[in-house]
């Protein structure tokens, strides 16, 4: 069963590109990106392991049930709304920036709003399915897409065009002080564990998640690829000029004898799949949190038939996302992403720390 946990870790780690993580880190490349990445590996792994050990004490229960166990509803309700909002923002940024990306690279004549509506319709349908379905959706999506993504990454690293001197130069800036926004962005790679907040409901009792030592390794590997490969391709200075730095990096590779010469189109399709899965999974959690507000709500991981409430909440999220794109541009999205990533780290540290204290106190009392 532990593979279902690692799917979340890998999915979220790979999706960092859609949330401008490389772009943010590259901005700080001379001002503490290296140290921030090092700190984020420690912080991210620590949070991940703590949260895992807390949740493993309550198999088959999500965060809402655990909170309700210890705290009065008056406290948990606003908290759950807050968590739901945090879970809506990330995936919404991803799907919005993907809609803009399609407009820029694939079809400039279609309005991004229209693309977004179509993407959201798919995500809404998926997000309102039962938890079990989403878990299998993530598994299938990753199994289908991961080989090609790994192939592209491998091709990138082994490419002659990479200038290792540029990578070396940036790596030399490891004496700079870390910056909060850079830590926030880098630690996002590890944030897949937070998905246990809802998906823990599907975890059977007495399951120990094995191979925990791979978590910092996966994180470090993804971080290094995300940050250094664009620098190798675009140099230490020009790399900062690109808005979609990884799309440009994919465009800098060719497969002369592949049936599509330009790698960027394969890359975009792969990331379209990942973004849709990520958004569906993120929104599903937000919906579950909001459903939990109702007094008589009983969490079901395989509930058939579907409840109407999920559809209504999901539609509201979609409406908010579409309205967001209507009113704001990519510049604001980028800023929002940067602040959300930084703030998210605060919330995660707060939540995990709070839960840790809560669970320990709860134990001593009983």
């Amino acid at each position: 069963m532990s593979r279902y946990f690692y799917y979340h870790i890998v999915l979220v780690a790979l999706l960092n590109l859609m949330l401008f993580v490389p772009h943010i880190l590259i901005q700080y490349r001379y001002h503490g990106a290296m140290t921030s990445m090092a700190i984020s590996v420690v912080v991210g792994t620590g949070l991940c392991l703590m949260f895992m050990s807390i949740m493993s004490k309550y198999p088959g229960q999500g965060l809402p049930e655990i909170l309700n166990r210890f705290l009065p509803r008056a406290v948990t309700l606003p908290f759950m709304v807050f968590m739901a909002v945090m879970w809506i923002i990330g995936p919404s940024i991803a799907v919005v920036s993907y809609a803009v990306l399609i407009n820029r690279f694939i079809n400039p004549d279609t309005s991004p709003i229209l693309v977004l509506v179509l993407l959201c319709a798919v995500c809404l349908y998926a997000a309102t399915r039962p938890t079990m379905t989403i878990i299998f959706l993530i598994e299938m999506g990753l199994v289908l897409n991961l080989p090609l993504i790994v192939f592209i990454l491998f091709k990138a690293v082994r490419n002659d065009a990479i200038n290792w001197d540029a990578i070396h130069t940036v790596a030399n800036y490891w004496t700079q002080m870390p910056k909060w926004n850079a830590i926030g962005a880098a630690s996002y790679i590890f944030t897949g564990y937070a998905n246990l907040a809802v998906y823990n409901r599907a975890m059977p009792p007495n399951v120990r998640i094995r191979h925990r030592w791979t978590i910092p390794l996966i994180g470090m590997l993804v971080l290094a690829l995300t940050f250094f490969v664009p620098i190798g391709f675009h140099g230490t200075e020009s790399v900062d000029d690109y808005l979609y730095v990884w799309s440009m990096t994919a465009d800098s590779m060719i497969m002369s004898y592949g049936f599509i010469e330009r790698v960027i189109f394969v890359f975009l399709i792969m990331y379209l799949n990942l973004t849709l899965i990520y958004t569906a999974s993120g929104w599903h959690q937000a919906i579950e949190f909001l459903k939990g507000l109702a007094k008589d709500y009983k969490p079901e991981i395989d509930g058939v038939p579907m409840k109407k409430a999920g559809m209504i909440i999901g539609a509201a999220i979609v409406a908010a996302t579409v309205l967001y794109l209507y009113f704001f541009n990519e510049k604001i999205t980028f800023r929002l992403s940067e602040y959300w990533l930084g703030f998210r780290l605060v919330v995660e540290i707060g939540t995990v720390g709070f839960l840790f204290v809560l669970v320990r106190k709860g134990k001593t009392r009983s």
Partner: protein
Amino acid sequence: MRGKGLLAVLLLAVLLLPLAGCGFKDIDKRFFIVALGIDAADEGKGFKVTLRLAVPSPKIEPGSALSEVKTIQAPTIAEAVRLAKSHVDKELDFGHCKVFVLGEKLVKKNYTDVMEWMSRRRDIQSVAYLSIGRPDAQSIVKIAPKTERYPGNALFLAFGVDGTESSYSISTYLFDFNRRYGEHGMDPVLPLIRKDPQEGDYFISRIALLDKSKMVMLLTPQESQLYNQIANRFGKSTIKATIEEENIVLAANSVSSSYKIMSDQDGNQKLRLKMKISGLFEEAPLGIYEKDWHKLEQTLSEQTEAQIKRMLVKIQKAGIDPFGFGLKYRATHAGNDQTWKTWQKIYPELEFDVKVNVHVEGTGLSR
């Protein structure tokens, strides 16, 4: 329940309605631009843009390539390309434009405007080839070689590794040019395409070195080959030496090069370039087999060392850094802004210590 599902499907279908008539135009209603030349305007400010448009044709055989050339003048490149649309009947598509030729005069003046335009356009591939055209871009783009199988193919093949691999030319991708354009400690290089007035053909045998805004110098074909051997470790090349007034040419099978920047006891910075070249004699007087190969190797090494040193000093005097020595320095010294400033002071006074090690594998088929 079934009715509801049907309703949902209908709703989704309605969403698809506005998609009709959007960007997807049929292939026979498109003109594919295969090469684009940019020159400075003949008079006054502005640009002259030359487009080579492929005419879709069912035949693929040498000589059957049909294409049309349009030249438009406008104050900016973007306007020129827009104006080009009013000269043709089909939609212009940059998706297959793999070669960009910049006029020599324009590059000698200032190329930054061109860069800005190219890096902003979404449909220009980052893997397009960039080059300089002499006498100008227009005349290069206009040339349609007789051997072309499909429009633009000859230029693509000249630069890619699928066709000819000449040791006298390099291929510069747009993203690589952009990287060097911004980089501290590495300057852009571009191949120069020259028109052969007699044959009505073009050839690429020299490399142009640029600084951050314009072209600074041109390497001779000989130097271009040396550049290729040092920077790209290009095998399939030659080295030449004169021994007792006889030319001998060694065809290199493998070339390796590495360099280090080090300071000697007095604090003077020195660049130590080490090269290893091994190959077979391709042209040498008969009887070379009997001679002392070791001596031949030494002479070849010494003469190549001198050639390389002369070239490096020439490039250094011009104040440019096409090899990326500066980046190497930054990569091997402490990471702070001071390093780059120090390098800028070091480079004009940098000494070169070139060690070439030639290895003769054999004398070819004859003695």
